[in-house]
């Protein structure tokens, strides 16, 4: 499984990295703009990410906006389900408006709330059939 963590906070990145690196290659980005760049580059080099963990509120470019750009890139390149990047939004509790927006747009598969819980994260990976 190849994953991308998009988080502006160092601790959040390191916690997710400590879990996800057990399951394969894992890269990190610090904002939505970097995420769009990494995702596009990975597609173009023929090694796309399987899953992206995306924070919603970030400087430079937020998670919602980054996700819209990534879906546009996939659409432009003719990438369709089930080959689209799977996205798990990561946000602090009580951020239901942002979570709802992400789901209503059909742009994400799941969400995690902080504090990130290892068991919950792994359960999502199972549900998305990213790990056995």
């Amino acid at each position, binding site marked *: 499984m190849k994953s991308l963590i998009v988080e502006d*906070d160092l*601790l*959040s990145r390191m*916690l997710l990295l*400590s879990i996800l690196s057990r399951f394969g290659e894992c890269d990190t980005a610090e904002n939505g703009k970097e995420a769009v760049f990494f995702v596009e580059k990975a597609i173009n080099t023929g090694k796309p990410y399987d899953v992206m963990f995306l924070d919603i509120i970030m*400087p430079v470019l937020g998670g919602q906006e980054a996700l819209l750009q990534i879906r546009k890139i996939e659409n432009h390149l003719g990438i369709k389900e089930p080959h689209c990047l799977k996205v798990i939004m990561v946000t602090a509790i*009580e*951020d239901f408006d942002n979570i709802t927006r992400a789901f209503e747009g059909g742009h994400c598969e799941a969400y995690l709330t*902080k*504090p990130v819980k290892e068991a919950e994260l792994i359960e999502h990976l199972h549900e998305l059939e990213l790990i056995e």
Partner: protein
Amino acid sequence: MNTSTNLSSLSRRSVLKSRGKVLKNNEIQKLPRVSRERLVHHFKATYRLDDDQIKVMIDSSARSMNAALAALYQALDENRDLSEIARLGHSIKGLLLNMGETQWAELARELEKAAAQGKQLDFRAIVANIHQGFEDVL
């Protein structure tokens, strides 16, 4: 905005005195100071981490907290828009939750909520309170 200011390289007490208002006892609820041992316990209990990884998480916590506090102080110094204060409050709230500090996260949530609603609280006092609470691990 430069969020990489390393407060640990400065005298933390001087930073508090010069940038944060000293709180009166009745202004904000006193919460227990955070210790390294408390953070170690949280990371051990919550994640399957070895000792080296726990050291990384403790170091990352300190660096994240320093960056978050510096960003908040800078935003307040520069009288930034309340929406920016709310965003930074949201950010530090998430950090505190990942550190297992739910009571401190609740205080950050109050800061975020008040700023998002355009309420004029003494934001500097709240930030200084959080700063004081984490002095031992910064």
